[in-house]
């Protein structure tokens, strides 16, 4: 159901965008590991594919427009020891956490903490912002799952 007045701005691009980005990241994986493919263990491969999926999802969904995508890319870049950006956010995090400690609706807070652990970049957000990010994140995740499902179905032996 779609209400005419939706306070959360969640417009997620079409499946094609997600598909393109995912395939692009996968082929990048391929070029990186072109010489060492037989030696890969299963778990490494799985981790790489998973990381590729998340990174491509973050890029497809508008990389810098959303907090969760930004923090995802940030984490991924850190793991590759690339240059770390967005250092400015750390100061904002501490301020928000101080502010958050003053308010307390105990029912909300427990669940909000769990949600913050799940959604990337959730540690520095207020609860209302967290809800927006969760909505967008859920939509993007479901698109990514559909894309991957299509791929798997296409690739599985008939």
């Amino acid at each position, binding site marked *: 159901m779609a209400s005419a007045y939706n306070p959360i701005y969640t417009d997620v691009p079409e499946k094609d965008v997600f*598909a393109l980005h995912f395939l692009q990241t996968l082929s990048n994986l391929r070029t990186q590991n072109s010489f060492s493919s037989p030696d890969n263990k299963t778990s490494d491969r799985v981790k790489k594919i998973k990381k590729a999926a998340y990174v491509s999802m973050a890029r497809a969904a508008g990389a810098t427009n959303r907090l969760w995508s930004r923090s995802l890319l940030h984490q991924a870049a850190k793991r590759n020891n690339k240059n770390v950006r967005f250092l400015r956010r750390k100061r904002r995090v501490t301020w928000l956490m101080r502010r958050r400690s003053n308010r307390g609706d105990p029912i909300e807070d427990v669940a909000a903490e769990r949600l913050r652990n799940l959604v990337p970049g959730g540690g520095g957000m207020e609860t209302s912002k967290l809800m927006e990010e969760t909505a967008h994140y859920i939509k993007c995740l479901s698109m990514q799952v559909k894309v991957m499902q299509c791929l798997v179905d296409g690739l599985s032996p008939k």
Partner: protein
Amino acid sequence: MDLTGLKWLQQHQQMVSPEFLQILGSDGREELRKVESYLGNNIYDTIDGCISRTSSFQMEPVKNNEENRVIALGNKRKPEGKRETREKKKKIKAEDETESSMKENSNMSNTETSSDVLKQDYIHVRARRGEATDRHSLAERARREKISKKMKCLQDIVPGCNKVTGKAGMLDEIINYVQSLQQQVEFLSMKLSFLNPQLEFHINELSSMMADPRSFPLHQQGSLDYSVINSNQTTSLNALKMETSSNWDVHSQCLYSNLRTDSVSSFFSLK
């Protein structure tokens, strides 16, 4: 907010103070306009009327900006239960009169429709505590309403959230849904890695995608693209044998330009 906010206003006929309007911001004012249209342009009349009527309540000696709000009612509201215990009644000279009149009106308001009650002389108002905590409580209430609004949007997105009510249950559902989605991603990536042991995604994807039986609806276009991509496939296979990244880039460019055909979109649009 729409329906619940309207019902809330309808049942309690709360006068909306100008400061509350400020806190609500532009979104809130929009909502108020909607409510106004729903109630038949009563609210703005009543707001103006309230401001003019407060003078008749003999509240002038205590008229500050913060205290120009609302006097406590006898109405019990579940979400405002907390705030009621904190509230104290202001010391207003005409308090007794207004209270008695309001009690009458409170009884009537619960049974009548909003449009009738709002046209009466006495408007129901509700007191906040003292000066300092007024702003805080108002801000807190505005914040809580914002959060509940957003949770309603989340409820629309997450399937199966309609049955559970209450914030905690809904949040648990949302958390479970996010966790399940993440597990699905992990599971599918495991499947993908098993299906493609050498990470040869590119060629396999194309050939399997084009030959997929589910792309039948775009038969004619699919066959055309197939021929094009076949020629590119062989060249890219040669490139793979050489395993030079430059060739790979060139061929990946061609392949990506082919990817942007209708057949691919049809492949991914079929569920």
